[in-house]
């Protein structure tokens, strides 16, 4: 066999082997995604999904505009949003009241803005049912659910969660948002 033929054959074999090895690297990571997913409607009318936020700790906040404790929860979530990098943490506040529209949510946000509270994270309306992310399906609101960077549920809570400090005389749950975020961010 001539040298040139040997070289050509070797080159072809090398290309075939390399292609075979690299094809494994181009396999879609979705095949290995065992995390949770659900769709929700953004305020601009488009649709988003939980798996759009893979790679981050996600706080799912289930709420409604009529819910006063939910309004207070927004203030505590704002502290969390301003403390952590967008690479590490995202917050999804999904309205679970079917009677409330995107306009109701926008009006709600505008009222907060008038008091200089800019709530800048992701807000939307429910499309897929989110009840399974409550502590129990009939739990009240606000309901908080943490997802890890792979989209798996790691923590659920019902009622207001303070960020890093409990108000004097507070008789609610003493679990703090900051402690939980710190715990999950380093995992």
């Amino acid at each position, binding site marked *: 066999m001539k040298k040139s033929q040997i070289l050509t054959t070797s080159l072809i074999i090398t290309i075939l082997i390399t292609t075979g090895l690299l094809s494994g690297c181009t396999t879609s990571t979705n095949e290995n995604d065992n995390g949770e997913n659900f769709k929700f409607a953004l305020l601009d009318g488009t649709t988003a999904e939980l798996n759009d936020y893979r790679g981050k700790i996600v706080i799912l906040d289930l709420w*409604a505009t*009529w819910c*006063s404790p939910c309004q*207070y929860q927004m203030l505590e979530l704002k502290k969390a949003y301003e403390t952590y990098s967008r690479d590490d943490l995202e917050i999804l506040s999904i309205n679970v009241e079917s009677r409330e529209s995107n306009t109701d949510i926008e009006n709600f946000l505008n009222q907060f803005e008038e008091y200089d509270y800019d709530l800048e994270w992701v807000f939307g309306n429910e499309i897929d049912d989110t009840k399974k992310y409550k502590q129990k399906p009939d739990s*009240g*609101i606000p309901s908080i659910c943490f997802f890890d960077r792979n989209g798996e549920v790691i923590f659920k809570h019902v*009622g*207001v969660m303070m960020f890093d400090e409990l108000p004097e*005389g507070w*008789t609610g749950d003493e679990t703090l948002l900051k402690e939980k975020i710190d715990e999950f961010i380093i995992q």
Partner: protein
Amino acid sequence: MKHKNNKILAIFAVALIGFIVFSTSSMADVTVDIIPVKPSPEETIEITAKITDENVTAVYVELQECNGNTGICYSQENITMTGMIGNEFTSSITLTHDDATYLQYTIIVQTDQGWAEYNKDTKVDYEISAPNNGNTDDDNNTPGFEFVSLALSIMFISLILYRRKR
């Protein structure tokens, strides 16, 4: 002839203006009574709405129960109110959460002009003490969550009412 046409036009214009004014008249007045005035958890309450609008076709009440100590709220589905005499609508509702400390309600009225909300998110305290407000005998009492939540709610409600009056 020209005078007669002008007269007809004038009458028509006045009638049209009158029609516009009356067809876009201000929203109805709704007065709500709740018995008992301060309910207890899991009690059955009677809620009555007196509505001035004569063209009411349906009335509902949206009701939520909340715990101001732990910061949790629960919603009920829209509850139909039954029409009585004299444009009064009433509903008997059994409260369902033993840990609630207050309820909120909104009256929704349907007329031939569409839907309208009244008394939006009006708060009614239950007949129980709120332990998280601390020692009420202490002059240095620091308000607890419920006070802060109430203050925030009042702030928002005041803003809404102010905007409606303008």
